[in-house]
């Protein structure tokens, strides 16, 4: 297959960038999107052109490292990570525009590589449980209803790829934060710190400069882990209740 690529090229975080035109020739239909870029890069290297820089790691859809916006959609068409997107999804001879994830809190490092440490700092603010270290407890010693475990598991599917903030016209990270708050907050191990967690994580999210949710639900549409936007509703509720508790002096 043959594709006409419009790729965002940017030398460094401070320099401006622009779209460059490349041709991708002899691409097998079964190549993944990243493999297509590998082939293009080999071609560019042979021609003495600097290869296109992009992030990738596991290439099996679980790490959330690949962060490309393809034709205006983070991770491209189809709901999954970029590495799980195959070239047969595109028409032969199609023009494909590839840009980095766009959000002020995800500064572009180079070409298609963005810095997503803002998500790490939100996790450090409260995306964990303060569990005692030591041997694992006996199985089933902490009973958790199946329905609760299922919802917590759905929320835990979030891989923190950043597509939600990249898809959001407001650059909002609320889908990500709500997934973490929901996942940890539903389980007995995470419950004691629920109020502290939601306060700390939302405040860190605001501090990082992410935007505010306008209920567009673009995040939900691109999320490779299928996190539902209704988790944001739960986070809103939890944050307001925790704020009320904090302001009237109830220990958190």
């Amino acid at each position: 297959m043959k594709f006409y690529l419009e790729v965002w090229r940017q030398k460094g975080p401070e320099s401006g960038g622009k779209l460059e035109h490349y041709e991708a020739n002899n691409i097998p239909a079964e190549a993944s999107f990243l493999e297509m870029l590998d082939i293009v890069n080999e071609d560019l290297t042979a021609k003495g052109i600097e290869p296109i820089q992009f992030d990738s790691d596991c290439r099996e859809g679980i790490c959330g490292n690949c962060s490309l916006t393809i034709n205006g959609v983070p991770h491209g068409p189809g709901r999954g990570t970029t590495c799980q997107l195959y070239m047969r999804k595109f028409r032969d001879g199609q023009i494909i525009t590839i840009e980095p994830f766009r959000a002020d809190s995800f500064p572009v490092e180079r070409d298609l590589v963005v810095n997503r440490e803002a998500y790490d700092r939100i996790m450090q603010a409260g995306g964990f449980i303060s569990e005692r270290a030591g041997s694992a407890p006996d199985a089933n010693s902490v009973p958790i209803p199946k329905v609760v475990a299922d919802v917590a598991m759905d929320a835990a599917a979030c891989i923190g790829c950043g597509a939600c903030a990249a898809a959001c016209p407001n650059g909002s990270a609320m889908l990500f934060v709500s997934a973490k708050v929901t996942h940890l907050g539903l389980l007995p191990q995470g419950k004691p710190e629920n109020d502290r967690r939601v306060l700390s994580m939302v405040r860190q999210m605001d501090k990082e400069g992410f935007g505010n949710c306008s209920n567009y639900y673009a995040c939900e549409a691109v999320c490779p882990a299928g996190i539902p936007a209704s988790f944001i509703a739960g986070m809103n509720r939890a944050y307001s209740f925790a704020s009320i508790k904090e302001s009237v002096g109830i220990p958190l």
Partner: protein
Amino acid sequence: MISAPSKTRRGPHPILLWLLSSIGKKTIVALTGICLVLFVTGHLLGNFTIYLGPDWLNAYALHLQSLGPILWVIRLGLLAVVGAHILFTMLLWKENQAARPKKYIASDPIQTTVFARTMRLSGLCVLAFIVFHLAHFTLQIVDPSFKHLETTLDGHQVHDVYRMVVLGFSNLPVSLIYIGGLFLLTLHLSHGIGSLFQTLGFTNRTTRPLIELATKAYAWLLFLGYISIPVSVLTGLVK
């Protein structure tokens, strides 16, 4: 341990922190939105007295006027609610612009509806429409002759609101302004009402589609209710 915000922090009061947070500001917009939806609903129910005849509408208008100071409390309260609704929306918008300064070149609106993306525009148009509406029927400066319309109700001389409405809507351009303004209000509400349930945290995976459908239907029901009055006047059903 996740650090306890209340113990370690020496800064603004927690309520202020909440108010200035992303979720706090959204909540204010949602709460003021509820007040305005309730007002719009109550206003429509009051307007429906026009179908019961001139005496009903005139008596209803007289009753509202006779509230005196309470009427001013309601008016100023509404003004404050509208002001807060707009102010907090603008604060959120400013942050949203800063959070996403660079747009995608290959722009493809994902999932969002045109109603959701035009909330600020539809809101400002509705604001202009409200100003026109107040100038037209409340301050009566669009057509000053409205001030001199009088009728008798239970032996008293009262302002003939019924005649004013019929005369007002008999003017086709004016009626079209009303229908247009109400259409934009409906666009605003068809995203807004459902959105406030989400912002206040009343939704979950099962209820969100139902709430969105119900609130959209409600917004269009309000539209039909409101435009029924100018349409009835124009078609001669109410005269």
